[in-house]
């Protein structure tokens, strides 16, 4: 019951996103912004699954989106444009990358893990930049959005809106279910007290690697949607700054549950949207807000009620 209460803001937001096209946010610009919001939220939830769930602070999650997005690009170039092939390819590409890099990264922990995921993310970025056949640094414009069984379903803005919303809800529910399962319990135990988990007979490595690959696969799916939302893919999408932003969304929302990442992503996109209209050098303000949020909101947005409660009790 309490868990329901904590997730209420996220549920309200999802309801709001479902209603948005019908209550005055149905025009093109707004729908584009909302799609971006939902796709980033999906990526943030999948990142939160390994950060909050498994204690794996990855600073290379944008690369997972990148693999998904570039799978769309490469298949588009080969004129394979049906989601029946493109979506699985995007998911498998990202999951494969997660498996290969995770196999090395998860052998380390703490600061090393952060830096290694960052380095592998950068590897993906530089590799994408060097793919001159797909535009190199300048990026690649898709011929068209991915088709669904031959139909140009995703071209309809409203359909695309609900596809994104559905993917976000699916991601959230899936990660939530995984964390509540036996598998998730071992993950959470390893995060809370690795020595205890090992003394009970659990080797952290296979659980963590599996979680990392699942998060990668979901990131790949988000990348598939991202490429379709913008119909354009460039290495800049998978730069390490983007990984930092995703991590910021997770922390901004708070780590007490996956719903935090949802709040964080939406808060982040709104803040970015608003600030970037205020001042050309809005990133300065953004950086200041980021630092202030880290210093003064340790529980994130979803932790504010508890934080206020503590302050009131102290008085």
């Amino acid at each position: 019951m309490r868990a329901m209460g904590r997730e209420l803001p996220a549920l309200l937001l999802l309801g709001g996103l479902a209603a948005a096209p019908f209550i005055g946010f149905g025009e093109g610009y707004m729908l584009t912004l909302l799609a971006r919001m939902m796709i980033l939220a999906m990526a943030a939830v999948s990142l939160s699954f390994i950060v909050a769930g498994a204690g794996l602070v990855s600073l290379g999650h944008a690369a997972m989106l990148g693999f998904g997005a570039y799978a769309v690009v490469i298949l588009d170039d080969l004129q394979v444009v049906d989601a029946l092939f493109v979506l699985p390819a995007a998911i498998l590409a990202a999951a494969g990358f997660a498996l290969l890099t995770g196999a090395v990264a998860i052998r380390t922990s703490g600061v090393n893990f952060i830096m290694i995921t960052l380095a592998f993310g950068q590897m993906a970025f530089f590799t994408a930049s060097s793919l001159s056949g797909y535009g190199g640094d300048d990026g690649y414009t898709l011929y068209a959005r991915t088709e669904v069984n031959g139909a140009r379903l995703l071209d309809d803005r409203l359909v695309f809106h609900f596809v994104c919303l559905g993917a976000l809800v699916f991601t959230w529910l899936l990660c939530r279910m995984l964390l509540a399962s036996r598998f998730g319990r071992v993950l959470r135990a390893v995060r809370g007290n690795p020595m205890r988990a090992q003394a009970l007979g659990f080797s952290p490595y296979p659980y963590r690697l599996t979680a990392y690959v699942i998060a990668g696969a979901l990131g790949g799916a988000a990348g598939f949607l991202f490429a379709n939302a913008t119909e354009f893919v460039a290495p800049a999408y998978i730069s390490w700054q983007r990984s930092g932003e995703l991590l910021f969304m997770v922390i901004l929302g708070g780590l007490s549950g996956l719903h935090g990442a949802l709040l964080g992503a939406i808060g982040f996109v709104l803040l970015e949207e608003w600030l970037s209209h205020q001042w050309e050098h809005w990133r300065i303000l953004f950086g200041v807000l980021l630092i202030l949020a880290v210093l003064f909101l340790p529980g994130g947005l979803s932790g504010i009620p508890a934080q206020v409660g503590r302050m009131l009790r102290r008085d």
Partner: protein
Amino acid sequence: MSLTLLLVQGLNGLQLGILLFLIAAGLTLVFGVMDFINLAHGVQYMVGAYLAAFLAAQTGSFWAALALALPAALVVGLVLEFLVFRHLYDRDHMAQVLATFGVILILNDGIKALFGSAPLQVPMPEALTGGFPIMDGLLYPHYRLAIIAGGLATAALLWWLVERTKAGMLIRAGATNAPMVAALGIDIRRLFMVVFGFGAMLAGFAGVMAAPILSVEPGMGDNLLILAFVVIVIGGIGSVRGAFIAALLVGTVETLGRSMMPDLMRLFLDPSAARQVGAALASMLIYIAMAAILAFRPAGLFPVRAA
């Protein structure tokens, strides 16, 4: 691939390695002593380069700019430490990552606001504009040799500081076992401030030296930061010796890989495919090397931290 070219690329690799070492040295000590992850270390390098550009334009002399930029870089480092970093020592790595990421955003865009996004040029010092004949008809620029020499001298100085002085002993002890040093009654926070300021100055020094041969632009520190991360992960966190060896390794592999890989691929592929695959492989090379080293030594080549 002629021998001459190999020699030139080898020297270029050495020079990149030296710059990387100057950045990685401060980073690895800060990691080692305080277990503090500082993404903003790369912007210290950018700040150094911009200070050089600004001061060289004001004074008209590279040497005056160098002399003024070093203390200025130190001050920038100490101000950042005072404003942001010291509030993060007790926080987890994630908080440190994000707050220092915030510092990057501020400084990158701040520089853009002050100097614009177009690259700045810094003239090479008059005395070092010539070249050194390393082979018949081939000159290697004096300035690049000076970077190598200056970097090696700094590395030697650093080695002496860390291995032979009392402060250095504390730093090494702190990297191995920070609580023990604190228990000895040493003010670990002051020690850290010193290490931090010194590391910022080294990164700034690297930026000043790189300014005349690279384009000085916002965000220039970010890529080097990640290479520096690779360096300290390979070298072993907290190990200056490891950072030195790994920096030279990464600098050489990166430089040689970029120049040789496309040619190498020509042996197997047609020219246009070779160019693309070669370039892609070259950009992956150091990360693959890192993965290979970590697969066998998860704590790096020269692990420092006590278990």
